[in-house]
Each structure stands twice: as C-alpha cells, then as structure tokens.
C-alpha cells in the first residue's frame, strides 16, 4: 500500500478512512462493488463499512457490510458478503483511494470525512 496526502507518508495503521467514499471510476466488473462505502474507524487502521448501491443497474454487492483493516503488506482486508476476508492492494492518496480487486480497479473519492 502506498499512503500519501492528508494522512502523510505514514504507517498505514494511522490512516483514518472514516467517511463516505464515492466511486469515481472503475473498470469492467465494478458494478459488483458499492458505489458508496460508508467507513468508520474503531481502532487505528481498522473499522467497519457499509456498502451502498448508487445506480439501478447495480445488483448484488460483493462488499455489502462488514469490517475493514489495513494490513502491513499494503493491502486492505475487507469482509465480504459471505463473511470471507479478502485482501486487495490499496493506494490511498489524500482523499482518493484506489483498490485493485481481482481484475478490476476501483477508485473512490472521499465525499465527506470525519470532520464533515
């Protein structure tokens, strides 16, 4: 994982992902992932999320509700709709977060943060 911007070049454990993250771009397959991730942080580098659909054509969400955790190897671990824990490379730069999921790249932009 690379972490830049608002959180500074810092250890992933202190990055606060709290806020509402809206998908701004995605490659093929992105529909299965939430258009909005509502994230809360309970301890440094870990917390919960709620996935939301943003468009009628979005069907079943693979990330529906659960936990997230930033891992030391530069990934974000997310509990999925089946409660499976899956880890994917993540890049966080300021208020933009890019996650490489299988063959799909998802870009989220924070639309409101912990202070909003």
């Amino acid at each position, binding site marked *: 994982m690379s972490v830049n911007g608002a959180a500074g070049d810092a250890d992933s454990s202190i990055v606060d992902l709290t806020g509402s993250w*809206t*998908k*701004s*771009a*995605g*490659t*093929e*397959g*992105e*529909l*299965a992932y939430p*258009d*909005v991730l509502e994230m809360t942080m*309970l*301890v440094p580098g*870990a*917390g*919960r999320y*709620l*996935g*939301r*659909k*943003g*468009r*009628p*054509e*979005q*069907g*079943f*969400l*693979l990330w*529906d*509700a*659960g*936990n997230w*955790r930033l891992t030391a190897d530069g990934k974000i671990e997310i*509990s999925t*709709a*089946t*409660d*499976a*824990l899956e880890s994917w490379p993540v890049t966080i730069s300021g208020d933009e977060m890019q996650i490489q999921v299988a063959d799909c790249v998802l*870009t989220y932009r924070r*639309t409101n943060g912990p202070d909003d």
Partner: protein
Amino acid sequence: MARSSNREPTPRNRKTGVDRGGIPLVTGPIGAGAPVLPAASAEIPVAEPIDPQQPLGLTPFPDPEGTVPQLPIDPLNIRHWQLEHPEIAERYSFCSVSLPQGCYALTVRPNNELAEYRGTLRVDTEDGPLTASGDLYRYSRFFGELTTGELATTATIARTNFAGLAGIAGLAHQAHSRYRRSTIPIYPINRYHSYLKVTSVRLWSFVPRGSTCTAAITAEQYLYTQPPAGSFDGTFSPAPGFRTVTFSLHQTAAPKGLGGPRLEGTLYVGGVDSGTVEMHWVSKYFRKCTIEIDTLTGAVSPQAVPAHAGSRAAAAGLANEDFRSVFASAGWDARIEYDQTAVPVPAGVNANTCWSSADLHALMLNIRKATTNLDTEWRLHCLVVPAAMGCGRGVMYDTIQVPREGVASFCNDGYPTSQSANFGTAANQQQRNTPRAFMRSCSHEMIHGFNQIHQEQEGGGDNSIMTTTPSVADVLGGPATGEAGVFPDDIRLEVNDHVRHHLIHMPDIAVRPGGMTFGSGHGGGFVPERDRYHFPIDELMLTVEVLQQDVAIGEPVRIRYQLTNTGTDSIPVPGDISMEAAYTRITVIDPKGRSKEMPSYVIQPDTDGTPTLAPGESLSAETRVFWSTQGFAFTGPGTHVIDVKVLWTADGVPCIVRGQASVAVSAPISEADDQAANILLHPQVGQYVALGGGATHLTEAVSRLDSLTGTAAGDSNGRKGRVKALRGFEGLLPPSQIELDQPRRERVASTPKPRAATKAATPAGRRR
C-alpha cells in the same frame, strides 16, 4: 395542480455525470466495455403478501357454466343479505374451504401432456396477510425418471397406446399421491421447472345448495430455464410469469393416518380447464433441511443456550434455544446432526490461523457423510475449526464448484473491540467462551448457506441472525443506549421477518444447497413494501386522475398519474413512470374490496436511470386500465378504487410513492350497453387494448369491435349508434370501424394515444 417542467432528458441528467441528489457522480471509465454483472444479480420471483381482502372474496371462479349469480354481497353481513334475498338464499349457500398454514405436497397434471409436475405449495398466514408460493418439478407421467432429453422417446412410446398408459398412470398417481406424501417432499435439482407466485386466494364460495364447495388459488407461474452444464444459475421468465394458473379446489378426505387436509380440483389456464391438481397438507413447517456439524480436533461446536425470555422458543415453552429453534423461527424443520467431534487437522494446514476457503472446502468433501445427495436432501455441512481472533467468526466459504454446500465457524475467533465498542462482556472474548454469541454467529453462516444476505442491505441492521455481528452489538448498544438489552445476553436467536419471508417464499432453486449461486435473487428485485421508504406528500406526491367518469362495464378507463416533487430538495426518481417502464404498478379494488393487479402487457425498460426531480417538477404518464393477464379490471357496477404505486431504488434505498383515484362503474342501462359489455369483456379485446390498438392479428377482437357498430342501439332504422363503452376505445378502434364511422375518426385523430397503450416510443411518461 402541481407545476411541471418541460425539461427533456439530456446527457447531463442521464446516468453518467448526473447529480442524483446523493447518488454518486460517475465520471470515470465506469462500465467501460460491456458491464459484467455477477451471475448472482439475476432477478427471481418471490411471492408477496396478498391483499387481506382477497381471501374473503366471494366471486365464484371459475364458473364456466355461468350458473352462479354475481351478486354484491357484504361478506361480513351474509345473514342480513340472506334475509333480504330469501329467493336466492333458498337456492344458494355460502361455504368455505380450509387451507391451514404449512406445506402442501402439490401435483399438477396438465391435460394432453406426458409430463406432470410435482412440488410444494407453502401457505403462510403468520403475523399478517396470507402469503403463498410454490415450486414445481417436472416428471414423466409414466416413467418416474424422465428428463427433458428423454421426452421424445417417451412421447413415441406413449403415442402407441396413450389410453392404456394413461390408465396405468392414473392408478400409479393415485398411489403416489395418497400414500407417499406425509412429509415435505424433496425433488432433484435438475427437474426444477417453475415457481408459483400466488396472487390471490379465495376460500369462500357462494354455490347452489348441495354443490361442492370450492376454493380458488391463482398464481403467476415463472418458468425456470435450467443452466448449461457446469453452471448453476438458470433464469426465470420475467414478471408476471409465463402464464397465470388457477387451481379450483375442493376438499376430499385425507387417507387415514396421513393427517392434514387434502384438496383436489381443476387446473385452469386462461379460464380454460387444462388439467387436474392435487394438494395434501404435509407439515406445519414450510421447508426442511439437514445440517451436519463436524468439529475439528481442538475445536468446540456451539451448543444450546437457555431460551431468552422474549424468544419464540420461550413462548413455545422450550427451555433452550438452539439451531433447530433458529430455523424454526423461519418456519423450517431443521434436523441437526452433531456428527464427528475430533476431525483430524488436514496435512499442511495450521488449524489455529485463518483458514482458506479451499482448505475448508477440501476438508468438507473429505469428511461429510458419504451419502450426501443434494437431490434427495437439502443438506448443509458446517465445519467448526479453531482459527484465531480476527478471522471473521465464520464464513460461507462454499462458492467453489457446487454452490453453498458448506459453511464454517471459528470457535477461537471472537469479538474484537476493533469491530464494535458494544460487545459488552464478550469484548475480546473467544466465541467458545460466549455461548449465545457463538450460537448466533454459527447460525448466521448456516443461513448464508441458504442464500440469505446481510440485513444491512435489506432494510438495515437489527438484532436478528442475518445482521453482521458488530451491527447487532451496536443496535443493542450499551446498558443505557440502543435497543433494550445488551450484547451478548440479549442477542435474539431468530431471523427477522424479511429473512423469514425469503426463506419461506424464495424459489427452491434459489435457496437449496446446490442451487443458484450465493446472492441470486438479492440484486434488488424484491423488497417488501413495508421495507420501502414511503415518501410523505410534502416530499413527493403521486396524483391520479381518471379521465372519464360514469364508466360503462366493458369500457377501458383512461387515467393520468403525475409524480410531483412537493418538497424543497431534488429527489432521484425513475426517468420514466409509464407502465411499460415497469416502475409503476396498478391495482384495482372493486366495491367489495377485492384487489386485482393490472401489470403491463408490454415491457419497455426505462433507459433514463434515476435522474433527479427538482422541487416543483413533475413526471406524468397515461394508461388505459381495462385488462391484464389477471383479467378485466371492471366487471361489475359500483365504485372502484384505482391504486397506483411507483416503486424504485434511489441511493440504495427502496422507495415507494402511492396515489389513488375512484371511478364509478355504472350498470348497463340499455340492451345495447348490456350486449356491448358481453362483447367487450373478451380476453382478446383486452389484449387488443393492452397492445395499444392496431393489433389486427387479433381477429376475434377486431371482429367484436367491428360488430359493435352493428349492434349498438341507434335508431329503429338501423343506423349505427354509439354504445357508451366505446368511449374508452378512442384512438384504438380497428381501421375498418373508423372508416365506417367518420365522425368518430375525427375525434380519434385529435386524441393523443397514451404511451402505455403502445410500445412505440412516444414522449408521454417522460419528464414534462
């Protein structure tokens, strides 16, 4: 009248780049190339609660001979009515058929088909309106193991001596039906044929004295197309199903010792006698399953816990809650098999770390009962392993090959404070030390195995099994916050109403292990009305206007409905609310409170997504309410209510807005009007109207409409007059009739054709 805007849809207010009032802006290469949805997004039908008025419906149906009078009778005042109409009461009587809650073994035998269909019908009356659904599996009427591929061979054999085979088959059916169905039947996955979404149930009859009392169950039948080999997701025919069937049933004596009510009768398709039906009550439960629990060396499995004071189990007098009581809260009869308790750790696996799905799957295949057969049993395997804190408490790991055969639970995982501050005494404890929470999380995985998803996506988190564990803790909160009680002591070991509804009424193939893949049917298709956000009238208002009054029987009723933003904020709404766009549903409620859904005969999906409706803006559409696959809307005199609902999802939230209008339907006042009603109330005329006119291939409809000008009471010189009911056909009449009636053609030409009556892309129904 609310203000309207004439703003047309533009690229800016279509899906991409639109400010959807909270729905995200999508400006990047989302969906570049063909969007690939998970297979699990396919829509599946699910029965919904039937209007509570319907079970009291008194219209005798089917009544092919037309011998029973259609009388306006208040079902709550039958005795009074009988006194007022002694001459009729002397010849007719009321009766009812018993249809207790539970599961019925069902057999449908269409006429002139070599196949018969066996399955179940589930009738649920608990906690509210009746909901019923069924599933059918295809069988040979002659050979029990017929598959689709064998049909031709069987047909060849049968043609040689159909009568003889039919006679033998009849005896076999009798034996099969009467003596083999005392339990909830299970049928092979590859025989799955169709789903029955029951839309009305009539238990009362008004019949000639001495006649058999009948009930009528009407259902939309959704045909299931089996997937190709190696795939697990077939497809259902789109709403409202590939046909509507009605079972006309009468009670018969159940064979001694086989318990519940037994009903037999006739299958009607489109009002035509099309076969026979048998139903036999087999269980108070709706479905049954078996769960095998195998426990790894060093692990412990969840065990029964004392029943919570407010639980269903306690209300039923049970001392404990356990897996069986959890499933019973969904109306399921679960057999729990605690099997192996010291399963060896597989080579190369560290049992005390997080397990991979592949390792869990491999172990499941190695240790589960060798006799496991998903065609004869709804069987789920549950593996309990130690794992470690932070592994997720459990997983429905089995999306590998055959879907949903197994789940796993982690006894050494637990309740880390990184996931909730409200775990209470369970905080940072392992599951093995928190029995009630352990029972909950393991049950959660098991019910995932039956294709149920997290409740945060279906109405919000609550204190029920299918909400994620940390959300349950947060719903309960602390001793002074949240709902009554605390985690883990007050965990509710039951499913909520929504999951219960799904577990009872989703199609077999979407629920049973080995059926459709996880997530199927959860793509946003079905959301119960009660779970939707109901817009108040100071935010969004739906007005319904009936464009003609004092309607004749047989006359299509034109309505205009308008969705108006009455609030101060923009609201994401469907881009098109015409009937064809499928966001709008119309129900007609007759003077006796009987409801009839009027789904569109033509579907033309909305392509505008959910643009926003600014304050003061309106969307409107017109349609003719006359006939649908459910029948005619107005078949008798009196005031009818036209109920219009628009349903959609905005920002992930299912929404609904509703409006109503009344229309008075008058009884025929002339012989011509009476004849016209008889001529017009024909299904082909109904289809003609539903297709927007111009359907000259419907020759019966054209002939009937043409004939009206000849039968209408004009004057004694034989000049054509105009029957009242024709008013509702303006713009639709066949060309032949328009030519014959020049003055009317001029009126037609000046009347815009409602979009809902045609598939042509006209702008009505779009933003105004």
